[in-house]
């Protein structure tokens, strides 16, 4: 009985040390500037640019998609909760949103079935 308790305490202490060590090491994350994030998207002749881009943003920071398109489509922003935007066949449409939960947020073009960008939203 006694041995089991001591061993249990040792394991608990080890797990705690591991977590604290990991948290302490990663505590100082570098802060990106809080300017608005803008992504220019062009849809022409069934092709979209960019694809699979990576961006960084902060929680609550406005993110703007500036879309020029020659076809109607639908933009899906897979944040929690999701955002959906209707794209018309027109130049310079802007869609703005903010993300409230940190995570990797994918911006997808629904009908062309392409991932435009993944936005890393940090706390």
């Amino acid at each position, binding site marked *: 009985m006694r041995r089991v308790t001591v061993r249990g305490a040792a394991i608990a202490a080890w*797990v705690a040390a591991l977590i604290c060590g990991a948290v302490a*090491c990663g505590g100082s994350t570098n802060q990106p500037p809080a300017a608005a994030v803008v992504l220019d998207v062009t849809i022409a002749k069934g092709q979209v640019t960019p694809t699979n881009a990576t961006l960084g943003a902060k929680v609550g920071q406005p993110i703007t998609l500036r879309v020029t398109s020659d076809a109607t489509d639908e933009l899906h922003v897979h944040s*929690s*909760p999701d955002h959906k935007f209707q794209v018309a066949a027109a130049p310079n449409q802007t869609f703005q949103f903010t993300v409230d939960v940190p*995570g990797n947020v*994918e911006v*997808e073009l629904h009908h062309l*079935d392409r991932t435009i960008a993944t936005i*890393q939203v940090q706390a």
Partner: protein
Amino acid sequence: MNTDGATVVLAHGLGGSSDLPVPYAYAMVGAAWALTFTFALVAFAWRRPRFDPLKPGRPLPTAVTTLVDARATRWTAAAAALVFTLWVVSAAVLGPQTQSNALLGVFYVLLWVGLVALSLLFGPIWRVISPTRTVYLLLRRIPLGRPGGRLSYPEGWGYRPAAVGLFAFVWMELASPDSASLPWVRAWLLIYGATMLAGAWLCGQRWLARADPFGVYSMAVSRLSPFRRNPATGKLVIGNPFDHLPSLPVRPGVVVTLAVLLGSTAFDSFSSSPTWRGFSDQTSRAFGAPPTLSSSVLRTIGLIVFISVVAVSFSLAARATGGVDRDQRRALPGQMAHSLIPIVVGYIFAHYLSYLVERGQQAVIALADPLGRGWNPLGLAHLHVAYVLSAHPPVLAAIKVTCVVTGHIVAVIAAHDRALRLLPAGHQLTGQLTMMLVMVGYTFTGLYLLFGG
């Protein structure tokens, strides 16, 4: 093409954001712990096997065993699970035919990840709650000629049918053209149910024990549970999971089954990386194939490659020892297979914990109103998901790294102990080195993928 029918690849068919990558420093700290511990273990640990599935354990009061084994308890649990299944099925068939349908969350989160958590806590629970088993037991009561036991289950198949079933699940989730498609998920479940019932009709309950993917998944994970049965008396005991782990039955296909679980989880991380996406888009453009189809084909190939790498590397590492004859060497991968379980469980929790906690809430909220008619019988409908893990990325990252490293450490301890039992004197140290290196390889790869590839 109408709007709802268009395909868009949602992460796990659920939409929403995915976890942030683990910071570099966390991954490095985890890797350093894993490496240090492994070699300290090989160099300094015990030289006689200590863990034994035949140990009696600490018995729980007799009343607990009586209660758990009571027919009334079993039927109550089975009936509750069956009612839950009917609820989900009614949502799937009659509910809103969109991605907010409760079926997707139940299938991909509550079933796939929730089953791991329950089996880890309480043992092989799928055997009790499996709705197909309950339906089979009910059908057996109808006097239509006694089913079951017409054929005996071919023992040479072992767990291979379950490995195929698990592959079918991960294919549906990670490689199918549209994992969020309700008709596809419904068809998957229909085929699963039909296969299970037909097999049980022919071969009896042994079919369900060997071929049900969720049953074998639950059974394998339950070997890490502190609760087990005393092998001599059948009474429930609480004991060291290290004594429970080696009791994993060694049957054909056991390594492949675990490789499907580990390989698919790793592929899930890898396939969301920009590297893979770029490669996939480029290849589909080069062949001029429709993107949805070519992406599905590429993902299927990627999934098979990941699973094969795990299965082959583990089998070779287990065999790489001196002092054993041909037959012993062939048996070694199966005899070591239980040591993969902690790595699988650690990595599944690292990868899917936020899914279980956050998407799990979403699934429960969706279930409260299965038909999308504004029902609110349990007062859940107005609730919002609490993003308890995602909102604190450092805590989530620390939990993930801890899961992976803990799984690794438990695995190397189990592998070391089993090597002492299996390998002949004089080869015990050198014989386990390859296995240790391969496990370090799995853990480093896992951490690298969590770090973002």
